[in-house]
């Protein structure tokens, strides 16, 4: 009897493995592998009184931080942790699904580091890396990367509709209650204040994955849940389109420090 039935058992196992493979391959829109549950409890615990302005207060701290002390963290592997630059690049330029950090607001970067540390933003690699950072390190890293300069090198890579992306960025799609990206992220997508990071010149894979994570609840840490509400109204092709459009733009000029011209000369950049 057993001999007769073992093919059935084997087939059943094959079917289960195949289904598992299918879910792994197609079950998640994004290509990120950290499969942690959305941290809804954490969001509820976060203090609603201070949360909308968290990046602003961290920005003030970062403005006083000394980026000199963190060069080891940026560029040298430490024990069981690794250097920022090993993934984000020597100029903070990022690549693929690793974000460009150069020129992002100091308060925004610092807040993300705190959010990883406190479980409000989930990513296995980042949560591991920040576990050894002090508050001072985080503020200094925010200050460092906000002032760093990196050329724009991004290309649209997701096959999105660039024109649709442009419309979403400049006009929004009010039929689905989506305002223009630039109505909060600045008139050229270069960011506003400490809470609204630049989008222009960001890698399309990164932007897309963040939108997808907000859409499916995996990322949950934007002020007053603004990005969750917006991403949940976007279709998958809209997310690809807008991520691709952002990658066609130039990243922000750095904030008030030197920039290198093509001929190698360095000039002070005046920010009004």
């Amino acid at each position: 009897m057993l001999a007769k039935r073992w093919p059935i058992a084997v087939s059943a196992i094959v079917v289960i493995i195949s289904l598992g493979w299918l879910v792994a391959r197609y079950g998640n829109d994004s290509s990120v592998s950290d499969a942690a549950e959305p941290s809804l409890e954490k969001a509820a615990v976060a203090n609603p009184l201070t949360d909308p302005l968290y990046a602003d207060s961290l920005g003030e701290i970062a403005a006083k931080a000394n980026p000199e002390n963190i060069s080891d963290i940026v560029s040298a592997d430490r024990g069981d942790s690794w250097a920022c630059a090993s993934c984000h690049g020597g100029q903070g330029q990022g690549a693929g699904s690793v974000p460009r950090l150069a020129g992002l607001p100091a308060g925004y970067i610092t807040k993300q580091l705190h959010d990883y540390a406190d479980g409000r933003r989930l990513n296995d690699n980042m949560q591991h890396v920040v576990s050894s950072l002090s508050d001072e390190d985080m503020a200094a890293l925010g200050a460092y990367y906000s002032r760093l300069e990196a050329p724009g090198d991004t290309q649209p890579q997701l096959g999105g509709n660039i024109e649709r992306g442009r419309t979403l960025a400049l006009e929004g799609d009010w039929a689905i209650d989506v305002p223009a990206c630039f109505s909060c992220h600045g008139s050229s997508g270069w960011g506003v204040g400490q809470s609204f990071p630049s989008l222009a010149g960001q890698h399309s894979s990164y932007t897309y994955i963040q939108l997808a994570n907000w859409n499916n609840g995996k990322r949950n840490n934007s002020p007053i849940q603004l990005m969750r509400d917006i991403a949940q109204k976007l279709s998958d092709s809209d997310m690809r389109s807008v991520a691709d459009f952002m990658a066609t733009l130039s990243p922000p000029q750095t904030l008030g420090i030197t920039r290198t011209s093509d001929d190698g000369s360095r000039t002070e950049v005046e920010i009004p």
Partner: protein
Amino acid sequence: MTDKTPYRERSATRRLVYGGLGAVIFFGIGSLIYDFGLFSWMTGTRTVLSESEQHLKTATQARRQLEEERTARRDNPDAPAPAQPTGEAGYFVPPGDEELPDGPFGESVERGREIFRNTGTNAGEFVGNDLSCANCHLDTGKRENSAPMWAAAIQYPAFRGKNQMVNTMEDRVNGCFTYSMNAQDSEHGDAPPPGHQVYKDLQSYFYWLADGAALNEDLPGRGYPSVEETDQGYDWQRGQQVFTDNCAACHGIDGQGQQDLNGRTIFPPLWGPGSYNWGAGMHRINTAAGFIQANMPLGKPNSLTDQEAWDVAAYINSFPRPADPRQTDKMDVSTADERFHEGSINYYGDTLHGVLLGEGITQERWERFLRTAPFHEPGVD
């Protein structure tokens, strides 16, 4: 049948191999169908439209139908009058860019749209603060329940109680410059003079947006919705918490808004010298509550309760802002209150935060106010 022969043993192995091979082949075909999105093609079902695509489809059809009905009527005077183009959510559908006419009128429409979108840049000499038309009329004046221009354009000329006379659209726009954009502090010192090109371009834009709407029709989505009065009434002190939780991330804890690296105002100031003055419609707490509930925070319309909308509108309008330009040098605030602010819901003429509201802003007064303001900078205790 309980008897097993060697042949049957071999057969089981072979069946398993064949079965396995078949499964692999079917699995491969299935993967390919999924990867190339052929399932809907095979079953003959159409791809489901996203919500956005469904809205766009309905809107496009509505505009096309208007065009067809107009053509039919040109050919046959007995054909019925064209219906107003209506979208998925029941609101009027203004024309899209593809309907923008060539020639001087189309150019005027486009200029008007740019003035509307970015007033400080494109009509800067008449703007005395950091606001643009599109700050209060969202989606460049196309958004329903955000005082859309397609609804306003078909309502004027009309008599208005505010100034006791018949107002044309030019008069209304003049009022926007005078009060909402505080033209008294602009380079020109006043709203654009009568007949100025700014009016022509803006009116061209409004008229074009209203293409297909019937004159004097009370279109759904017109103006700002009214928020029902609550049992508790409105209270700026309750509104402070609503503001911190919902508004401060963009407009700042001090309500002074934020600019981007280009120096462009991205989040407009809600009070103080860079905001609308005491003559603007938005200083009325009920008007502001309606706008806020239907439109704010951006991307989260109708997320505030009636009570929260009233309270936060009261909070925003409890602070100093530029004087009502109708209050001339010889007129004190209480007289202006009686003449211009009677019967409207506002704090004009009240003394709040140690300031007589309505007396206007001088540098000295503003600095004095900031020292005692009930909000404080983030991170500073």
